[in-house]
């Protein structure tokens, strides 16, 4: 259970909400309303006032690295610090070859892609590789920022399947997406960030 209490993002009024295990909360709002800032703040990548609990433990009670092993932010435009994806995976604390194979297969990515220079890998493939990278150490909470923005319908379907599987296996997901249909398909609840800062926020539960 992820619990956010009185979290201050920019000029927005403080946000309070919960995301249970196996639940997907969609973050909605126009561009610039603070969706990315909210996800970054939950991953503790930006300073923000307020409390964030995961299973009763506040983020400041544990080292930042431990928190981010549990609560994983996935940027809309993934960046890499190595020449190939393989080198970045070798960087992981406990590389798990079987899990890597499973994730690559689930997202329709070929093994050879790992060895290819990332500069010649397509945008969509890079985005899916970044999702594999984010899931490799099995974090409890996924903060997905436009996870299918660069993908074709086929790849989008694969990513949505993987997200559903994560939800079924008890992970929590926060999803910022401009894709209405996708939000309908995946989310259990929605958080609407207002257009004008300071105009208040509404959280509504969909069916």
């Amino acid at each position, binding site marked *: 259970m992820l619990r956010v209490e009185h979290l201050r993002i920019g000029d927005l009024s403080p946000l309070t909400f919960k995301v249970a295990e196996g639940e997907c909360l969609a973050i909605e709002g126009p561009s610039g309303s603070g969706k990315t800032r909210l996800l970054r703040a939950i991953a503790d*990548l930006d300073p923000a006032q307020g409390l964030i609990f995961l299973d009763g433990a506040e983020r400041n009670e544990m080292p930042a690295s431990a928190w981010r092993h549990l609560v994983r932010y996935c940027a809309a435009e993934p960046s890499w610090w190595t020449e190939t994806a393989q080198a970045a995976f070798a960087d992981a604390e406990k590389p798990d070859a079987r899990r890597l194979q499973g994730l690559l297969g689930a997202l329709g990515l070929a093994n050879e892609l790992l060895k290819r220079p990332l500069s010649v890998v397509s945008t969509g493939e890079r985005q899916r590789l970044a999702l594999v990278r984010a899931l490799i150490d099995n974090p409890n909470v996924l903060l997905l920022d436009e996870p299918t923005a660069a993908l074709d319908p086929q790849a989008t379907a694969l990513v949505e399947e993987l997200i559903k599987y994560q939800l079924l296996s008890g992970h929590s997901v926060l999803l910022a997406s401009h894709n209405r249909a996708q939000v309908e398909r995946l989310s259990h609840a929605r958080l609407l960030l207002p257009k004008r800062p300071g105009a208040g926020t509404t959280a509504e539960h969909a069916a």
Partner: protein
Amino acid sequence: MSYVPLTTFDLLLAATLLVINAAISWFFRLKLEKSIAIAVLRMVVQLALIGLVLKFIFAQNSPAWTAMLGLVMVIAAGIEVMTRQARPVRGWQAFGLQTATLFFIGMAVTGLGVGIIIGPDPWYAPRYVLPILGMVLGNTLTGMCLVLDTMTETASRERGAIEARLALGSHRFKAMSNVLHVAMRTGMIPILNAMATTGIVALPGMMTGQILAGVDPVDAAKYQVLIMFLIAGATALGVVCAGVGAIVLLTDERHRLRLDRIRTKS
């Protein structure tokens, strides 16, 4: 051991060369006349002042006076590190950290060079301590500025990659390791180039000075080698301290990248 002292008339004669600078600026409309005048005036006043100050301190020949001027030099070098950077990190922590680094490196390297290796009598002889401290500080601060500039620039450019690593749970030093690597190389290269080309392209200033003052060229070369070793060691220390310090300044204790701490261009 003798040299020809210069008279005021000699200097005025040399100053006529500045007419060339002024003429070029006028002819090509560079509008540098004012800058040339200010630079020349600053140079003459500063050198005359430091000449008088050094004369006074050499006459005192006391450890306290030597230490005081040394401290002033360290603080001036610390200020220079801040002003020379294109986009320094805000706040007194940055200045404090850099000045403290210069202080310890200056003390350690000058202490080793003068106190142990050269061993003048008395050990605090300002004639040895102050020029060597000056050369150590000057080169160390050049290396530090290069490292700090490269760190802030590369961290801004590579923000996505650094934050990707942080988001995956990397320690801030691990997330910044690529940036640190680039910056430290950049900081080391000038002193390596200087060592490789010294004596071929131009004689180093100190060696030239000693030769003009009548020192045997081989002895002057020995001194220059000693100075180069001291400078190389000091620069390496300065580069490491500036790099690690920059990581601490550009990130916080929650391992977040804090580019908001960099002063924006005004």
